């Protein structure tokens, strides 16, 4: 069971309550939430916020593929996953991504959560433009997309 969505920050906010509602089930004994937020300092530059850009349809496809891969690579069959990532401007301290991973046992849930965020970093076409206190901004260097 997978919920995958891009959230336009100008219209909506990422909300962990949605993840809790989606993952609520008596089948699972462990739920891990990973919440990514915008931090205020990067490479000695004071950050005010980040604008996220994404190729939405390809990002959703990558989330679906990562979910499927978790089955073959981690051998976790009974699970529910909630992934939402922001697109648009996000201020410091605000959330950019929520990953909720629900499994029968805690080992599986921890592994699944970590697997998903690491794969998102490598496979989901999302980009960050950082904004600084001196009113400058800069696209961050990323990594080449992996298949």
């Amino acid at each position, binding site marked *: 069971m997978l919920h995958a969505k891009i959230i336009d920050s100008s219209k909506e906010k990422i909300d962990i309550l949605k993840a809790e509602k989606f993952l609520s089930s008596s089948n699972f004994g462990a739920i891990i939430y990973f919440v990514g937020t915008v931090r205020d300092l990067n490479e000695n530059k004071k950050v005010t916020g980040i604008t996220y850009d994404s190729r939405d349809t390809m990002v959703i496809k990558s989330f679906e593929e990562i979910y499927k891969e978790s089955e073959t690579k981690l051998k976790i069959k009974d699970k529910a996953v909630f992934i939402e990532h922001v697109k648009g401007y996000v201020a410091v301290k605000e959330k950019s991504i929520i990953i909720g991973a629900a499994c029968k046992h805690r080992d599986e849930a921890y592994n699944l959560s970590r697997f998903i*965020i690491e794969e998102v*970093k490598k496979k989901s076409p999302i*980009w960050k433009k950082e904004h600084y206190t001196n009113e400058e901004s800069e*696209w961050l260097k990323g990594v080449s997309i992996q298949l």
Partner: protein
Amino acid sequence: MKVTVELHGATKDLSKNNFLEFEIKKNSSIKDIKIEILEFIEKKFKGNQNLKKLIESSAFCSEDDEIISENYKMNENQKIGIIPPIGGG
């Protein structure tokens, strides 16, 4: 023939429209499009080396979001996307 390149991430600095259009020869490949973009940077951005490196390190995708190789041949009016290095989360 005309092809459209949809821009993402840092490549959006290449155009306010978020896309570039090129007139290319029939049977042109992604490799040829890369050359067109590099020539565009040479003309419009005084050969900005950072932008050129960005293009060199970018992948390309088809309209149905599949990553396509440098030898991929394009059709008339085809849209492709440029995928510069990523970094979500």
